[in-house]
């Protein structure tokens, strides 16, 4: 029983970690607080379901289409919607308020479109749901695949950020966007890349959610909240912290769902959020 919860929690945590990675890129590098993040995840989830049900496309193939599509969507969104706000805000704290408001509006637009296109019902697909034994615990294959995707995508990103020149540029902008231009970094380009990459990660996470979970068009707030809390828990812009916090939240949520009630998972998220706010608002790994 304990082991089952542990393994299922790790799988869920992997998806959450991926969700949070995308958000931490958008907030840490592009400085956009994106409240429509969960809705972007849902778009990918619905696209995957549609491709699977209408065209019979395998979710793994669909994923290869969804990830770049997410990148392009994020790129266009940044260029069309966020860039004017960034330009207007200048160096002050204006951007945060403006981006919160603009993406709050975007949230309703996307949710409205999703409701119109797919209705308010819960959606799920059955794909590779035969059990496979992991340490004696039967785990559905689709969950393992989802975990694999998250480990792969998340790990690649962490490595790229830590080891490559591109990652160095990204981290420089995250740290001091004001000084980055002094060493010849095009902050606008990097911010756009960060935002687009974040959207791509959101869509990968959404696609892997669609593989093993039920979801509905109105669940976006839940995903956004979870991603936000993980980001804050790990420390804004801290990729490793987000990975760790994501796994922790997945574990906690699975324990709450099995031991107390599945209806209280958001309450568990908020409980963690409260503890972090009161105890270490800079994040578990952040330095003041």
């Amino acid at each position, binding site marked *: 029983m304990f082991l089952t919860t542990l393994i299922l929690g790790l799988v869920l945590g992997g998806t959450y970690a991926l969700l949070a990675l995308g958000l931490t890129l958008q907030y840490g590098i592009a400085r956009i*607080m994106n*409240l429509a993040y969960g809705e972007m995840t849902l778009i990918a989830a619905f696209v995957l379901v549609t491709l699977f049900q209408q065209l019979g496309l395998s979710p793994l193939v669909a994923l290869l289409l969804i990830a770049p599509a997410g990148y392009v969507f994020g790129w266009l969104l940044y260029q069309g*919607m966020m860039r*004017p*706000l960034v330009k*207007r805000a200048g160096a002050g704290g204006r951007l*945060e*308020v*403006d981006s*919160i*408001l*603009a993406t*709050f*509006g*975007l*949230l*309703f*637009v*996307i*949710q*409205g*479109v999703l*409701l*119109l296109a797919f209705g308010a019902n819960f959606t799920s697909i059955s794909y590779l749901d035969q059990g496979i034994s992991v340490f004696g615990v039967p785990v559905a294959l689709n969950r393992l695949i989802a975990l694999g995707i998250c480990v792969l995508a998340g790990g690649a990103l962490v490595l790229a950020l830590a080891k490559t020149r591109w990652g160095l540029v990204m981290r420089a902008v995250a740290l001091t966007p004001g000084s980055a231009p002094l060493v010849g970094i095009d902050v606008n380009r990097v911010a756009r890349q960060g935002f687009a990459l974040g959207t791509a990660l959101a869509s990968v996470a959404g696609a892997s959610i669609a593989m093993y979970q039920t979801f509905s068009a109105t669940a976006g*707030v*839940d995903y*956004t*909240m979870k991603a*936000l*809390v993980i980001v*804050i828990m790990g420390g804004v812009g801290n990729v490793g912290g987000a990975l760790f916090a994501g796994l922790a939240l997945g574990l906690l949520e699975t324990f709450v769902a099995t031991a107390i*009630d599945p*209806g*209280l998972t*958001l*309450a568990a*998220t*908020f409980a963690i*959020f*409260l503890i972090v*706010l*009161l105890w270490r*608002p800079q994040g578990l790994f952040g330095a003041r």
Partner: protein
Amino acid sequence: MTRFILPLIALGALAFLPGFVSEYGLGLLIGVVTYVTLASGWALFSGQTHYISLATAAFYGVGAYSVAVLNEALPYGLVLLCAGLIGAVMALIVGLSTLRLQGVYFVIFSFGLAELVRQLITWYEVNVTGTLGRYIFVDVTARGIYWQMLALGAATIALTAWMQRARIGMALRVIGDDEAVAAHSGINLARAKLVAFVLSAVILTLAGAITSPRYVYVEPAIVFNPTVSFLAVIMALLGGANRLWGPALGAVPLFLAFEWLSIHFPDTYPIFLGLLFIGVVFILPDGVLAGIDKLRARGKGKGTS
């Protein structure tokens, strides 16, 4: 003097309005006054400080749900009092844990708050009391609700007007402009923000409590509707969130427009709402009133040069 007399005459006229309109007209009036109150109550805190609260629906819903739970046990006046108190306690919890920190933590907390309260109440009702959904039988007429809401709305605007001239209003404005400056000039940041937030929350909660008899049947999914949070913000922004009359000015036309949209385009209207919201953020970030001032200033500038 006209500053006081004109609003008072308008208030008197509005109080007699129900005698001249149909049942449907009265419903619209209640809606308009409710959203004027919600938008003004929201702006009381968020307009000055730029701390965007996305939790209007949470307080509104708590107010409505408190009435649903308590209406058979207590007299109506006490029910309203209890609802206000519950709203204040909730605001204190949120405020004490987030308002000491950067604004973004507050926004995030408020963003999920309505959904959190909705899930908690649903869980409690299903598992403990076993009754999801309650009926409200209170002896209040539609006119009674209108007058109560009108009084609350007037009180909100009067409170805002007073605050803008008082020390606390000054403190909030400085906080909104620059928190570091505010701290250096000796303002107790957390206390000023907390007081304003709790006041605003009590108003929002009372608004929910007062309109709740209109629902008759109340369920968490009905009263914790995120659209309420959304509407309060966009109305206040459109008119000008840091002006005394801005939120009211935004609420009247937008409420009527949304009412019309929700009847004629029930499926697509959330999309319109969202697009309109984005439009307001882009085109009129400081609201219509500021826009008019700017145009006037430009006109004058041309005249002199």
